[in-house]
């Protein structure tokens, strides 16, 4: 009887433990992922789209029970697109909030500004878009989602120059114009190198200040110089101003564009519509048949449903796919190393090829994609101004790299407004 009562008591105790086991696990603190993000200021368009994507992922992962049985919590602060605020934000995340994992904000200036703090804390840093963000640091725990490869500036311009050299008769002269900021500078430095390599004579080589209001003077000078090729590395408002001036002045060239930020967003696509025809630009993903990846359509459908309410880019082909892939990679890494030990995470990130919604991702020693996968696209067959046409194939034809090529170069670029 005594034995029986002990057995019963033991069974009751076990039952009670089982009853409380799940709630106790659920009471474990969440895994915290910290980052600064541009939610106001010039890069807020991209920053808010990235944040919406992270929230979509967070909801999905928590619905599945979280990471390692723990819920996931995002801890983030608005960096106001101001690099000066970034070190403070990451110090707070790491020293006060004591987040488990840190990822970066959006944009080269903001990512680079976080690096000293990240390195001092020896954190693994899964960064978002940053052009050559690790060039000066060579930090072994840095990994970027920007598919620009080990020679980022070169990767962006390479396709442009390669295709230009194949035009008959071969172009001889080129004009280079870019924003006097991190992205523009890196892009133009690489373009200079490529122009020399491919034997094009540079007839104009200028950087303009980021707060330039009107581009008519620059474009008029270009028209007088009449280069065969015009390579532009501009930020969103400048891309719009430049395009307006190009059409007003009537600047034509065999190839025009190259590194124009902003045209990837629905707002600028809608504004310019058919005036984008034959313009060349870089991109990271476009809905061409050569770029079908598992899970991307489902994610984009989910993103587009929420984009309008969140006041972000409704098309969502530039930032969201890579932000979602970033979180897929993070999920796989945390699961594989059974935690978030920075050394283990970095080692796993270095050795693994990840299968994501943007295809396979593999990093080289400096945390840049290996190989690079920057796309050179050309706007073709644009009808009207609606952004939905850009969600379908055939509007942004991939010219480069060859393995993703979906169409051929059409030239010259001729303005249509006059």
């Amino acid at each position: 009887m005594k034995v029986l009562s002990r057995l019963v008591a033991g069974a009751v105790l076990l039952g009670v433990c089982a009853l409380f086991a799940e709630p106790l696990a659920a009471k474990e603190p969440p895994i915290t992922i910290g980052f600064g993000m541009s939610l106001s200021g010039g890069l807020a368009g991209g920053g808010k789209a990235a944040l919406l994507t992270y929230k979509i992922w967070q909801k999905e992962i928590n619905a599945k029970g979280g990471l390692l049985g723990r819920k996931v919590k995002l801890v983030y602060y608005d960096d106001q697109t101001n690099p000066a605020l970034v070190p403070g934000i990451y110090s707070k995340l790491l020293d006060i909030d004591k987040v488990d994992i840190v990822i970066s904000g959006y944009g080269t200036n903001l990512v680079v500004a976080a690096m000293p703090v990240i390195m001092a804390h020896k954190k693994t840093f899964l960064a978002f878009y940053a052009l050559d963000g690790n060039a000066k640091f060579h930090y072994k725990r840095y990994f970027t989602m920007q598919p620009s490869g080990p020679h980022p500036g070169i990767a962006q311009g390479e396709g442009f120059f390669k295709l230009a050299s194949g035009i008959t008769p071969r172009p001889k002269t080129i004009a280079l114009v870019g924003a006097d900021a991190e992205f523009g500078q890196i892009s133009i430095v690489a373009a200079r190198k490529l122009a020399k390599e491919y034997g094009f004579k540079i007839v104009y080589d200028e950087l303009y200040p980021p707060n330039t209001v009107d581009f008519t003077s620059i474009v008029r000078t270009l028209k007088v110089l009449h280069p065969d090729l015009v390579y532009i590395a501009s930020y969103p408002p400048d891309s719009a101003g430049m395009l307006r001036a190009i059409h007003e002045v009537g600047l034509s060239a065999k190839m025009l564009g190259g590194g124009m930020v902003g045209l990837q967003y629905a707002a600028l696509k809608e504004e310019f519509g058919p005036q984008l025809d034959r313009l060349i630009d870089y991109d990271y993903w476009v809905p061409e048949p050569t770029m079908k990846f598992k899970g991307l359509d489902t994610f984009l459908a989910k993103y587009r449903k929420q984009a309008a309410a969140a006041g972000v880019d409704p098309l969502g082909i530039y930032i969201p796919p890579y932000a979602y892939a970033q979180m897929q990679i993070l999920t796989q890494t945390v699961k594989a190393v059974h935690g978030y030990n920075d050394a283990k995470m970095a080692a796993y990130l270095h050795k693994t090829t990840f299968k994501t919604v943007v295809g396979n991702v593999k990093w080289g020693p400096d945390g840049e994609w290996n190989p690079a996968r920057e796309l050179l696209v050309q706007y073709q067959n644009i009808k009207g101004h609606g952004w939905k046409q850009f969600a379908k194939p055939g509007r942004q034809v991939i010219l480069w790299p060859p393995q993703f090529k979906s169409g051929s170069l059409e030239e010259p670029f001729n303005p249509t407004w006059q």
Partner: protein
Amino acid sequence: MGVDAELLFYALQTGLLLGGFYAAVSVGITISFGMLDIVNIAHPAFIILGAFVAYYLNSTFGIDPLLSLVIAAAPAFLLGRLLYKMYYYAFERHGEESLQGLAFFFGILFIVEIGLILLFGVDYRFVEAPYISTTFNFWYVSLPLRLVIPLVVGLLMVTAIQLFTSRTFLGRAILAVSQDPGALRLVGGNPVKIKEIAFGVSIASAVIAGPLLIIIQPVEPSIGRDYIGRVFAICVLGGMSSLRGTVVASMIVGIAEAVTATFGGPAWAPAVAFSLLILTLLLRPEGMFQR
């Protein structure tokens, strides 16, 4: 015409057109900073507010941006008066307007910016109007209407404010308050009331300049920060409280930027414009047209 002469001619055209727009965005600072001694650092935020009013009216009701500036002017005037009342009762009345006042307007700048982000999101916004993509070309003259219209409206606005300040009792009172508020009080005027009206005019001019900006380039809520340095520089260059000086300084900055961008490279454009400011301050510290 030789190539250089042609380029110079075009640069002068562009500079004049740009200068007209700069006059429109700077005239409000001339009133608030130059005449009233209020460092309204939030001035560019109200320009962006005006731009978003134009965007909203254009995208929702199809209203032309030029009509929207007429619609927005009166509410903006009232908003300016309200803001000044807050500023006066919170800071100026206690003689704490210098640092706290500056912080107040910084706060206003962020409130306007974040408010616009919450209402409209962070995307770049455009307006549609037939003249935005129209350019008149004859001989060597090329006039894109998206730059001509801001020039014309800007000059009309400054002229109207000039006439108001020089021909009306209230306008003269504003000039008086900018010179000696104590003397105005002695002759029975109420400097606080006068400053309130003048600040209303200043904010209204900023909101009116907004539709002109969105005609020229796409806007997003934080783009106003780009204009802070430029508008204050123009105000100082023009002689702080001189409307005529504001127009001349705007034209000088516009032309300097365009000519430098054409012949020296665009990277030097702001350096040349601000060098002109430094040079003017060295040779004529009171600005070009100090009253």
